[in-house]
């Protein structure tokens, strides 16, 4: 039964998690401060009360948390584990890359790990270098893991459901700057979509812009302010990545700009560019990437601004590539 509700991004995730806990009895939800406190960003508020012991707090032990998710998933549970900041994955990256990712393949399909890792990433004013990274590219090089990055409340709702319902490990990367934003009309209770797909955020003819994550607001602002006629493809799912949609658009526009908040070198933007040019599609100008400089992220806001991509950088790239 589909209905709509006015929800923030965080509220949409909360609603999706509630639905998962409600309709999939094999779900578990755990992480640091997620249960009794309801999450440091309030995203899991009320879920412990509503769903009892299936929602619980853990020690500050990311390796044990992720390992426990792998093991519980192997046994048929559907754990949803929160890693409070994407940066913290790195203390336990083995459990994602060497463990979760291998379960299905190495067992020849006899085992699986239907687990969801919720985390959030990115820079916000004043965050330190250890709380500012955009790490999706690390995950996107790992076969066996799915990755999504919702930005709109509706996507946050839908993708959370699709991720939890999927039978492989999925990392859903949220963004804390969005949690408490404006409320939006969110369709809830509809059918659960399979994973994958993209969102077309702007339609245009002169350039294809591929982007993901919270920086899409800069991209939209840049498109709107420059008046460039752009197809803006939001890759809400990065694995599986909708290469076909990008190619179809570039075939039409003949130009490609990729924008991400992560630093450029080795970012997933390179993969998008490589796939497009390998396809042999003919381009009217050289493809471009906009991302953070290859730097650590300073805490100082004015310094971070100099490192991270800004609306003006995106606008300049749009003008240049179409000019």
């Amino acid at each position, binding site marked *: 039964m589909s209905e709509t509700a006015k929800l923030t991004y965080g509220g949409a995730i909360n609603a999706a998690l509630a639905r998962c806990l409600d309709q999939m009895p*094999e779900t*578990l939800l755990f992480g640091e401060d997620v249960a009794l406190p309801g999450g440091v960003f309030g995203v899991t508020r009320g879920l412990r009360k509503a769903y009892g*012991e*299936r929602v*619980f707090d*853990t*020690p500050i*032990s990311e*390796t*044990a*948390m*992720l*390992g*426990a*998710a*792998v*093991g*519980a*998933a*192997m*046994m*048929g*549970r559907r*754990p949803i584990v929160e890693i409070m900041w994407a940066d913290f994955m790195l203390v*336990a990256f*083995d*459990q994602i890359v*060497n*463990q979760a990712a*291998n379960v*299905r*393949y*190495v*067992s*020849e*399909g*006899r*085992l*699986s790990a239907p687990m969801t890792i919720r985390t959030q990433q990115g820079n916000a004013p004043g965050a330190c270098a250890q709380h500012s990274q955009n790490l999706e590219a690390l995950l996107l090089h790992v*076969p*066996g893991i*799915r990755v999504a990055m919702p930005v709109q409340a509706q996507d946050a709702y839908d993708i959370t459901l699709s991720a939890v319902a*999927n*039978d*492989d490990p999925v990392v859903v990367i949220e963004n804390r700057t969005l949690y408490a934003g404006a409320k939006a009309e969110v369709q809830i209770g509809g059918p659960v979509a399979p994973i994958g797909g993209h969102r077309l955020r702007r339609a245009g003819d002169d350039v294809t812009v591929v982007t993901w994550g919270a920086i899409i607001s800069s991209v939209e602002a840049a498109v709107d302010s420059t008046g460039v006629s752009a197809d803006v493809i939001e890759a809400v799912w990065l694995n599986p990545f909708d290469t076909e949609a990008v190619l179809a658009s570039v075939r039409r526009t003949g130009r490609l700009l990729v924008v991400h908040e992560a630093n450029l070198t080795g970012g997933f933007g390179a993969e998008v560019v490589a796939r497009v040019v390998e396809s042999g599609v003919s381009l009217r100008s050289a493809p471009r990437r906009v991302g953070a400089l290859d730097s650590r992220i300073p805490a100082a806001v004015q310094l971070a601004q100099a490192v991270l991509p800004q609306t003006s950088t995106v606008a300049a790239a749009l003008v240049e590539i179409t000019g």
Partner: protein
Amino acid sequence: MEPQMNQQLADLHQMWRIRILEETILQLRLAGDVVGSVHLENGQEAVAVGACRMLRRPDAVFSTYRGHGWALARGVPPEKILAELLYRQTGVNGGRGGSAHFSAPEYGFYGENSIVGAGAPIAVGAALAARFDGSGRVALTVFGDGAMNQGGVTEAMNLAAALDLPVVFVCENNKYSELTPINDMVRNPDLSARAHALGIPAVRLDGNDPAQVAAAVGLAITTAEHGRGPTFIEAFTRRITGHYIGDAQTYRPAGELEADEKDEPLARLRHLPGFDEAERRARAEIAAATERALAAPLTDPSTAREHLYV
């Protein structure tokens, strides 16, 4: 025969099966039929045998790379293990796991792990699942002395303790981590003290005696069944082969290996009337299994891309 004697003979037979399986694997490796990294558990068989005979159907074992014997003791047919190491279609994972990373969930063997310590948190997850799935499962994870220094093992033990989860942590203390003595890598050689400190009941015992291991695992299961959570077992044992094939064991003090060979679980039972018979039966079984495994077709390389995702 008395029941105790029966049990001893049953254990003996199981240990012979593991020993001969391992010896067979060694031969296959030396002959080039098996390639790559292989870790044998010769000398350590009593831990697997003592523990696995106490486990029930729903229980789940998570071992390390040194896991052939654990799989066998758990009931995985030797042919399927050998075929796995030989990369045959009939292997438990069609050769994708290989010696160091195979699993056979249909026998309660949830797999080896080649990252030191990484199986412990995963076992905790299997125990967590048991809290909700009504299976009554106890998860048993086995790792070495050296693995105690991998942070994730402490995290796993603490999580199991904090949540009262039904986990049996078995530490096979064989004195060495690869080529390095554990006692050079810790100040306090009593590794069980770490479990104690986390509030986990812990016992140290002779891991070359299957009866002692079985008793402790039995108690651990009861503890878990009563909702009282994890148990830690430090089982002293020795491997009487190298860490890997080709390890010349030059790091062993003079005379140590000889002493270990006298004290290994099979040597201890040489006096038993059924000793030779147990060996013969095991040899026959493993030989037949080897023949069948070798005769099975290699897994078709065209399947290599399958099973990455659902």
